[in-house]
């Protein structure tokens, strides 16, 4: 892509984003050198957008090595079809699975501990079919495979987490961006509730601290934020198309806090509006201030 083309694209992205402040980031990204902290791609087809965003980050080969066992963790929490934006876009998930295999992964596992009935969630979200078609091992949560993990965190001393995540060579978090009644938004860090065992709903009593504790224990290689469609109200379950906003955007990064901080901007918030982002930054889990990051945005 030449400079002129990129400028044009960047301008379109900037216009597409509601928050005027992000325009500045676009140009800052432009000046950045090769190494990118956070890649944002926007365009038509989810698979192309996903691929493009990961390419900007240096390609999947940078993150997945030959022979790796990779866990790809989408949000499959609810019994909704993709257009309702309550679950991760199946095409995004399928593409990531493909990229992992292209990078030489031995096995890619896809699962989530759902809230609604798991069979319906897996099927209706389209994720079981899309990930399966890409060659992933799509499995339902096996209750026997949770292991207590010592956290000594802000509130959680320990919590049972899913063994497959703990034992994987690489973990890729693939959340969808949604509104949430308590944490305001559910993005990357909140997506880890899907690998928690036990009576996880108890963590709502101290949601921000708990999310930081769990995110620290999981440490993903990569976070791919699905904002092809975002759910702006009545989250996290949704159920009405009028609450869904089509952005055709996918963001990729390695820093969990930065990713969620960026995700907040899609809803007109700042990262610092989210308790777990503030706490995460404070705990040294990542960078909240997007101005300190090299963010590259492209149009596909």
């Amino acid at each position, binding site marked *: 892509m030449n400079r002129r083309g990129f400028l044009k694209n960047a301008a379109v992205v900037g216009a597409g984003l509601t928050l005027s402040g992000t325009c500045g980031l676009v140009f800052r990204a432009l000046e950045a050198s090769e190494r990118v902290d956070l890649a944002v791609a926007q365009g038509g087809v989810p698979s192309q957008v996903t691929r493009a965003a990961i390419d900007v980050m240096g390609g999947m080969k940078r993150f997945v090595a030959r022979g790796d066992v990779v866990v790809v963790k989408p949000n499959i929490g609810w019994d909704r079809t993709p257009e309702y934006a309550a679950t991760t876009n199946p095409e995004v998930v399928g593409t990531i699975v493909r990229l992992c295999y292209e990078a030489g992964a031995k096995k890619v596992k896809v699962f989530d501990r759902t809230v*609604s009935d798991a069979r319906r969630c897996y099927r209706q979200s389209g994720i*079981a079919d899309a990930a399966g078609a890409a060659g992933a091992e799509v499995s339902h949560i096996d209750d026997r495979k949770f292991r207590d993990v010592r956290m000594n965190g802000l509130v959680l001393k320990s919590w049972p987490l899913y063994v497959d995540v703990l034992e994987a060579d690489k973990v890729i978090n693939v959340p969808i961006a949604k509104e*949430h*009644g*308590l944490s305001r938004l559910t993005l990357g860090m909140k997506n880890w509730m899907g690998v928690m065992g036990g009576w996880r709903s108890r963590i*709502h009593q101290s949601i921000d601290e708990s999310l930081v504790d769990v995110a620290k224990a999981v440490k993903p290689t990569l976070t791919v934020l699905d904002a092809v469609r975002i759910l702006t109200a009545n989250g996290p*379950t949704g*159920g009405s198309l009028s609450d869904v906003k089509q952005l055709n955007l996918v963001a990729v990064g390695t820093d969990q806090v930065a990713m969620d901080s960026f995700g907040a901007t899609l809803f007109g918030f700042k990262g610092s509006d989210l308790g777990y982002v503030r706490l995460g930054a404070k705990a040294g889990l990542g960078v909240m201030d997007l101005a300190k990051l090299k963010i590259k945005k492209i149009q596909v």
Partner: protein
Amino acid sequence: MIKNLRRASQAVFLLLFLFLFIQTESKGYDDLGYPVRLFLDFDPLIFLTTLLASHTVPVAFYLSVILIVLTIFMGRVFCGWVCPLGTLNNMTGTLRKARPIGDRRRLYRWKYYILLFILAAALFRLHLTGVLDPLSLLIRSLSVSIYPLINYAVRSFFDTIFFWNPSVMVQGSEFLYDLLKRSVLAFEQPFFVQSAFVGLLFLIVLGLNLIERRFWCKFLCPLGALLGVLSRYALLRRSLSEGCDACGACETLCQGGAIHDGDRWNLSECLYCMNCDDLCPRNAVSFGFSAKGAPAALDLGRRNVVIAFASGLVTVPLLRTTALSKPGYVNPRLIRPPGALEEREFLRACIKCGECMKVCITNGLQPILFEAGLEGIWSPVLIPRIGYCEYRCTLCGQVCPTGAIARLPLEEKQKVKIGLAMIDEGRCLPYAHATPCIVCQEACPTSPKAIWLEEAQVRNREGRVVRVKRPRVDLELCIGCGICETLCPVIGQPAIYVTNVGESRSKTNQLLLPGAAT
């Protein structure tokens, strides 16, 4: 020879029955994809009593017409060749040494009395068929007890290996376990409140075979009785050649107890098992179509017929004078599945087959005991603490054989209120304990959410102001699905719970003034 054909037929139908039973489970799609209630659709007893009791024609009644016509011409071949409970009785009976039936034969009348009892009650709209109909009994027993039992046993076995030996053996056992999970095991271990009771009754039915082979089929089965009546003029008949010397060898192995006194044969008791044809030492027995001979004797005794019929009649007011019949006296936790008819109509239609409980995706549908009166025994109720009603699922209505739970399109089902959720402020964390919690609101499936959050400032013990969001229920939007109660982290007695007030199916069990804004 023909005996082996009969065995093959029994095996095929039993396997088909079990296959359809196992398919009575969600795969995540909106429809099941298999006609899982096929056997019930063929059952003329269910057809007849549903017609009488609920004044409705069951959805697929024409299939039972096939069985009626078949029986009129060919006798009780269904009992001997098809019925899955008959086959199970047949198999269990082989544990007992074969003996001639002797005087016990006369007990065959019992089943006709039971049939009369059921029909008399059904005539006055009390539907008791499901308790004793063999297919209903079998599906209910398997759903609520035997299948969960098998699942539990298999799971425990593989779990033991899994936790005991985390090495080579586990790989093999997990492979096998995975195979079983994909084929015959349930997606999740099912649990039912009456598993032991329903299971014991079923084991007793099987156990009776140790007293007399096919005890149930010979003496108790009301469907067998109905088919017996229909078969009185059947054309498929047994004939004996002159070689027969009334040795009585066939009496010992007769599955229906139809042969007595050496060479006498009762047409309406014959199951056409063909044992007599097979074993006759003189080869004197043959079966063929013939219109000759008198219709089967059905000597029930006038007195006993009157008693059986009258008992059925008396049972109607006996069961109906429960206080639950009094208007306004409602069991608040009697939450019926979505699409269930108004309670009286529901009880008239439900045959307690347990299909809905088997298929319920969250295991929330459970058999009740006396919560709806004796009449409602084993009918389904949603217990949200066990499982909620999945917002986009319509399976219970799809499998109900009598329309007691109407089959609703998804958009309609989502509007049906099965009850309303209310909050126990004394137990709810944000209300009583200044502790954040929004679990009920988060999971509420309607759009907009029936549970909304109200910001409030409360003081904790130290006097510090804490901001919490308190859940509130919008009674207009709440459909009573119960996911809030299922997930409420206040374990045991929940801080939000559903009662059936406001249920769409009832005109009287209502709360809000129609048209008034809340």
